[in-house]
């Protein structure tokens, strides 16, 4: 079975079934925004949502993660996490799935990151395809992430009174097989899906004024552009843009001891290139002193450096950095300004 269908009225039944299999994390409302949270009841889930405050990366690359337990005297170390739990990410947008694919490339690149790989191994991804723009800040079409491009176990596509489920892995197949309310999609469903994708093409338009190779070229040439100075004037270096980015993975390592002063835990905690001290080294030298250099670095870590290293753009087009910027720095505007520069 490659495509299945489930009636909307049976969705709750299926969610209940999924919750029996593993912890289920899904988008929920939080004040005027959305967050991924564990859900205990299908009614808590919001299937129509703009990208959550933090991407689901908090589940496979937690904000503060235990790495190691230690004892000072006698000196001993042990595993910080005994076992990793199975979990399902439910109703993940295609942009965030692209984010997971980027993280995969990074953390699998030698030396492999065991914590990430352990979590990834326990993770099941059920996506949901967006049928309209979440808001004006997204640039998913230019990044090619407005349509499913793999990286998931199941993909839900809303089709009037039902959902089509694209089955993309064995893990995914197991979650839909032998359930009497999930059936194989028929030819009519497939025609509807094709029509829907055609309609989507008319609605979704490229947000950048140039193609990705053109953008790569421009980043190659515009290291000293005045665009970076303009951004620095607005930027407060709060780090919102990096914290909410599905592909920012920088961290710092810290040791914390208990009050006994003999036992402790080593953690890694999110950190980012926007922070003042991030590129400071012993002796006080700072490789990226100004906010212009730091913001530029963030952009280069999306449109230039990962392309050189992994042959992949690290912007997913989710629009979170723009949405969370209190100064109103807009990614699409920045990229288009660079493209416009003579």
């Amino acid at each position: 079975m490659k495509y299945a269908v489930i009636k909307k009225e049976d969705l709750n039944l299926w969610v209940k079934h999924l919750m029996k299999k593993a912890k289920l994390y899904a988008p929920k409302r939080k004040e005027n925004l959305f967050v991924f949270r564990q859900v205990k009841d299908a009614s808590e889930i919001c299937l129509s949502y703009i990208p959550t405050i933090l991407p689901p990366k908090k589940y496979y690359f937690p904000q503060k993660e235990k790495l190691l337990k230690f004892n000072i005297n006698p000196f001993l170390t042990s595993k910080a996490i005994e076992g990793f739990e199975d979990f399902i990410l439910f109703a993940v947008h295609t942009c965030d799935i692209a984010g997971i694919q980027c993280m995969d490339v990074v953390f699998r690149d030698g030396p492999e990151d065991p914590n990430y790989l352990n979590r990834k191994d326990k993770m099941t991804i059920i996506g949901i395809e967006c049928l309209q723009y979440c808001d004006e800040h997204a640039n998913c079409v230019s990044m090619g992430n407005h349509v499913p491009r793999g990286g998931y176990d199941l993909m839900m596509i809303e089709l009037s009174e039902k959902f089509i489920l694209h089955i993309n892995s064995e893990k995914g197949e197991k979650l839909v097989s032998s359930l009497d309310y999930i059936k194989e999609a028929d030819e009519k469903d497939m025609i509807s899906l094709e029509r829907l994708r055609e309609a989507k093409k008319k609605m979704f338009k490229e947000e950048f004024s140039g193609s990705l190779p053109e953008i790569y070229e421009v980043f190659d040439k515009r290291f000293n552009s005045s665009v970076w100075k303009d951004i620095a004037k607005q930027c407060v270096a709060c780090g919102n843009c990096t914290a909410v980015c599905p592909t920012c993975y920088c961290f710092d390592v810290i040791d914390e001891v208990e009050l006994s002063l003999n036992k402790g835990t080593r953690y890694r905690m999110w950190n980012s290139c926007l922070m003042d001290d991030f590129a400071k080294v012993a002796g006080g030298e700072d490789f990226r002193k100004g906010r212009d250099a730091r913001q530029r670095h963030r952009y280069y870590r999306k449109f230039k450096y990962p392309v050189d290293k992994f042959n992949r753009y690290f912007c997913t087009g989710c629009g979170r950095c723009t949405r969370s910027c209190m100064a109103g720095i807009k990614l699409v505007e920045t990229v288009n300004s660079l493209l416009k520069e003579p």
Partner: protein
Amino acid sequence: MKKQPKPRVAFFDFTDCEGCQLQIANMGTTLLELTQLVDIVKFREIMSEEAEDYDIAIIEGAISTDNDVKRIKKIREKAKVLITLGACAAIGGVNGIKNRTSLEIAKQRVYGDMAGSINTINAMPVHKVVNVDYIINGCPVYLPEVISVFKCLLMGKPYVVPNYPVCAECKMNENVCRYEKDEECLGPVTRAGCNSWCINNGNKCYGCRGLLENPPIDAAKDILLKYGLTLEEVLGRFTLYNDSMGEKYDKEFK
């Protein structure tokens, strides 16, 4: 191995509300755990005994009289380690508001007819008068940070106050940014270390932990203006706790 005697800790208060000491008094069982490692020999909120022999002096409050200057110097001479506790001692805190006008006006406002008999000087953080070994920021102090500082002290390590903004912790806590609700906040210019305590509980950041080493005052000012504050209100926000860092931002406003 012979057990070393526990270091003796004494608490002192200067110009302040004593709320930070109250935080410590309210620490609960952790305070008892802490007394396994240190001897508290003077702490008037929790004990009536008072010893004048101490190793570690914990100073709460700003320095704001000539007598304060003399007193803090004496304490410094005696103490092997000196820790400032809370915004008043660490950065001057709200006491600094009086520095925004002349001392004469400030005295008149508070003491009226009695102003002539009052000795007062500009409010100062403790480090402006004596050498400080450990700084604990906040109004009031954040207890997990107090514990971290004690651990560093007992291990003989320096405690580094984060030089990244409250926003970094706030985002990790996945709060809805106040700016996304059309409300202002000093998070972007304020030192983290409080785990975005106020915002987690529905309040805004007032900047009580002091400004970052290089606060992006120019950009922060533009943002606050955009969110409807007047220039005077913006300056008021920045100086509510942070008069002692005046040089850093005064030029942005004048």
